[in-house]
């Protein structure tokens, strides 16, 4: 049992931190205000190899472990929730399923471009009628000769429109299971620019406002037969397994947001004076900070443990669910208290702490709500 990071991880963290401080932090407020996707930052991250951290070197990645990737998302989130989720969705939700379930041809075709950041990835599962109940899919894929024909739409897709490669989940038929009719769900790789694949609404969000969240529309969109990912009918399992990994990314994002808020708050309470002394000298401030720091530390250990589980275990659903559930709720609580300790200034956009509170809320919702994580955890407990 060793809780210290080794040299390799320390160096990686220092690199992420430096990049976040110098390249991401100065733009964070502008990205939030303008709701514009930080394309230049993404190009810089591609150059540094941040978009293929856990991808083996032979596929053009950095060949690092999941913990290194987790720390990258965490460090980015300390200064900008938007930038963190761009990396997370691209890596966990698009590259990971292709690496895990793709054929050698698919990996060769897609992964090098994605890992190098020449292309960006996204994941399309959610629909207006299928959120938590992901089985409620309406999007259909029908085999016609040697092409799949997709019809339907997806909503709330992170990296939508800016991404080039999309993992799309769709219904490919109806199967009888123990006398009950069930949807047969499969997953596909769909490229931007395919005729019949367009983008609908850009969502206006409360937080992570620079993240490009779009509706995807498929109208008789034809893709080659070989673009099915994994076996026909295995799509739901692929989606669920992909989300297990994605939850570690979101847990890291939540952790980073909480840490960033805590760091800023510690600095602020030392400077701010009332009643002739710094507000850090009031016991309420001290105890609040103690609680915040303790929770952040507990969250960090859960997140890192989940990242290690992904590196060493076949199944890590429960570890990922616990990490995401706890880190997200800690992020919400810590950012809320951080705004309070900033007083009136905390409510002003110039001070950025309110942005962290807005960004924190989504971590309790996307890639499976906190309630879904509780379902996963209790389901495992009571099996």
């Amino acid at each position, binding site marked *: 049992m060793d809780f210290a990071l080794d040299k390799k991880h320390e160096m990686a963290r220092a690199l992420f931190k430096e990049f976040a401080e110098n390249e991401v932090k100065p733009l964070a407020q502008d990205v939030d205000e303008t709701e514009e996707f930080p394309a230049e930052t993404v190009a810089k991250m591609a150059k540094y190899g941040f978009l293929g951290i856990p991808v083996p070197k032979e596929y053009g990645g950095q060949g690092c472990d999941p913990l290194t990737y987790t720390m990258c998302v965490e460090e980015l989130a300390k200064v900008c929730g938007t930038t963190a989720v761009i990396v997370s969705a691209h890596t966990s939700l698009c590259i990971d399923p292709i690496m895990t379930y793709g054929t050698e041809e698919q990996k060769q075709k897609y992964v090098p471009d994605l890992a190098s950041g020449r292309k960006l990835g996204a994941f399309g599962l959610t*629909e*207006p*009628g299928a959120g938590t109940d992901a089985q409620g899919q*309406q999007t*259909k894929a029908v085999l016609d000769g040697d092409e799949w024909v997709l*019809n339907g*739409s997806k909503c709330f897709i992170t990296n939508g429109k800016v991404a080039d490669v999309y993992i799309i989940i769709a219904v490919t038929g109806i199967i009888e299971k123990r006398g009950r009719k069930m949807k047969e769900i499969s997953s596909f790789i769909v490229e931007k620019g395919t005729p019949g694949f367009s983008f*609908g*609404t850009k969502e206006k969000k409360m937080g992570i406002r620079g993240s490009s969240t779009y*509706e995807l*529309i498929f109208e008789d969109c034809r893709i080659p037969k070989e673009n099915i990912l994994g076996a026909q009918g295995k799509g739901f399992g692929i989606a669920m397994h992909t989300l297990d990994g994605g939850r570690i990314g979101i847990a890291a994002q939540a952790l980073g947001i909480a840490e960033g808020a805590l760091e800023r708050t510690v600095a602020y309470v030392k400077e701010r004076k009332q009643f002739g002394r710094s507000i850090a000298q009031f016991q309420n401030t001290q105890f609040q900070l103690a609680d915040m720091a303790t929770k952040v530390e507990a969250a960090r250990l859960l997140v890192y443990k989940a990242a290690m589980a992904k590196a060493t275990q076949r199944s890590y659903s429960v570890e990922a669910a616990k990490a995401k559930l706890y880190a997200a709720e800690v992020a919400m609580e810590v950012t809320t208290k951080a705004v309070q300790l900033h007083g009136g200034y905390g409510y002003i956009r110039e001070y950025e702490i309110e942005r962290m509170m807005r960004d924190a809320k989504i971590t309790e919702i996307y890639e499976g709500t906190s309630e879904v994580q509780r379902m996963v955890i209790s389901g495992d407990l009571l099996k």
Partner: protein
Amino acid sequence: MNLEEYKGVYVFAEQVDNKLSGIAFELLGKAKDLAGDLDTYVAAVVIGSEIKGLADELAAHGAEKVIVVDDPELKVYRTEPYAHALSEVINKYKPEIMLVGATAIGRDLGPRVSARVATGLTADCTQLEIGDFPINPVAGKEQKHNQLLMTRPAFGGNTIATIACPDNRPQMATVRPGVMQKIDKIEGAKAEVEEFNPGFTPDNKYVEIMDVVKAVSETVDIMDAKILVSGGRGVGSPENFRILEELAEALGGEVSCSRAVVDNGWKPKDLQVGQTGKTVRPQVYFAIGISGAIQHVAGMEEADVIIAINKDETAPIFDVADYGIVGDLNKIVPELTKQIKAAAISK
């Protein structure tokens, strides 16, 4: 009150600008049925100024008798002289049943008159029939026959009440427009016309009409529309909304849309139905090329009748639709418009 004295089914034949309103003919159609059941006659009461010429038209739609109250005071509808006129008609002719259209005018006039002649009024009826009261015999209570049973939705349509008026005459009802059927015109029919003058003495209850403004609906509020023809992404283009507009025109309805259509910039936001748009409750809602996600359905599921047209038979819209057609809206909608126009002409 001697109930035996009261005879005949009377309708108030509303006219505006000396033109009979459609509701007058609908009421006559229903009155004919009721009079048949009661073995009595149908009379129309028409009130206005210079309106004697309307009698034949009323006869053609089923009136056997027309009572005309013609006076310059009655040129434009005003509560006091009209209520006085109709009350006096009732006092003189003693109708068994008095029907009034539940229009803006009728809803104002009906209650005034019922209070003056001291009888019961049921408002906004959707069904009228002759039957027994109580409907099922109650021990120790006399069951009266040949009563007018008036049925109306109450509490915003959430309950249906059937109401009778056993002890007073006439039995009065205002009737919802568009519910009753007019009869086919009887060419060359003549009615027995009686002129009646109750005498008008203007007093301070007589309001002065300053100005009558004819509504020109430039901008429509989809929340008020009785019929909505709503299009979704499946319509394909803003130009293609023309076929929906034609259908709406044929039906006297309005066009609305889903969020996808607004997002694409095809229609303005104030036509959007759904959770983030408007909640509508029309009598008929056409959902055309709309998949029927809950975000949309939440805004229209209260419509009385939902008709869905979609090429995907598994679209969720069919779960809430009363009628559905699976197919290409580009073929179905123009055909529907054609058929509706043809049906309207033959009416």
